């Protein structure tokens, strides 16, 4: 039991930390496309971690399955939404800011 609680606490803490990190990233990063990465950060690992954190605390019941469903849903839909957003932004005239020098971005392939 203690193990579970420690594990849960760890998950929650790390999840929370990553969550805030994503938020900071959202603010700090220079352009839209980079910010997408930051957003992805909070969603891909932070969300499951947080959910896992409460799963570990919960008594065994069907609710656990529900949390799992939520997790799957979040994991399935968020990257998709992010991807759709990125694509839309690209077509909507957002120029990705390309890092100086070493990236030979093939911006010409823009549709």
């Amino acid at each position, binding site marked *: 039991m203690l193990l579970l609680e420690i594990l849960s606490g760890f998950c929650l803490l790390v999840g929370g930390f990553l969550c805030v990190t994503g938020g900071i990233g959202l603010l700090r990063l220079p352009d839209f496309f980079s910010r997408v990465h930051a957003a992805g950060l909070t969603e891909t690992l932070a969300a499951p971690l947080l959910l896992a954190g409460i799963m570990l605390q919960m008594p065994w019941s069907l609710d656990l399955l529900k949390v799992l469903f939520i997790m799957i849903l979040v994991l399935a839909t968020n990257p998709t939404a992010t991807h759709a957003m990125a694509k*839309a932004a690209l*077509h909507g005239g957002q120029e990705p800011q390309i890092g100086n020098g070493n990236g030979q971005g093939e911006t010409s392939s823009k549709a």
Partner: protein
Amino acid sequence: MVLLAFLVLIALAAIRMRDLFIVVMLFSVYSLMTAALFMDLDAVDVAFTEAAVGAGVTGVLMLSTLRLTGRWERRPSHGPLLPLIVVGITGAALIYGTLDAPLLGDPAAPVQQHVAPRYIEQGPVEVGMPNMVTAVLASYRGFDTFGETFVIFTAGIAVLLLLGIQEGPETRPGRTAIGDQLVLRVVVKMVIPLILLYALYVQFHGDFGAGGGFQAGVILATAFVLYDLVFGEGDARLVVPPSWLHRLGALGVLLYGAVGLYALFAGKPFLDYSALAHDPVHGQHLGVLLVELGVGITVFSIVLAIFYALSGRRKAS
């Protein structure tokens, strides 16, 4: 408190923004926050509905309108003084009104005293379902809900009168931001069955937990809205033809009414579900199930019809 602060911030931002797209998005977020607040105030069912309706349906409908009317609001030509005065007076009146109001959460407030205890104490016994909100909604105040169903039906009629639905498949939409995204299509196709089942789950579990016909109808409609958004309206209309919708909507309302009339013909008052079975509580249960079904069908079809009507409209050249 934090939620309320969020709400205030969002509301202020919504006033200042002139990009209506953003305003609508903020409104959706606002709704979502309100729903969270409702959760905190123990109003589970309301939170459920607000999330599905305010953030979901309303937002989508507004967005589809914006597509037709343009994104930018012009700077208002009138000074804000007069509205501010009106708002100031109204707000002052409201604040004045709250001064004598019972404090938040006071168990001795009149609200908690008079009518409510019976719902809480007797509701589960008399109507036979743990969710008192559903008991009150569908049975004690079933007639309000009957009216509510008609409100949504009326809205459907109104939108159909105003816009009509273009029948049959249309050509694929023009260059929208989603375009023809493969990833989206696959994921959405995977998610939709879950949404459908979830909606039906919500429909039939209103007795036990949050949810009920209205929420279920909205979620079910949302599934098709999602399908329409990603696969284009042509496909969506082949799956659920518009010509079904207004008929379904009417049938749902009639189902509700028929349950009421059945009671009436059985010599009981209108909507008295105990007439439906020998055991009154069983009758109540059956009645609630049926009327919730009616509500669900109506809400689903009308919401979808409204969405079809708005999104199928072509931009005036």
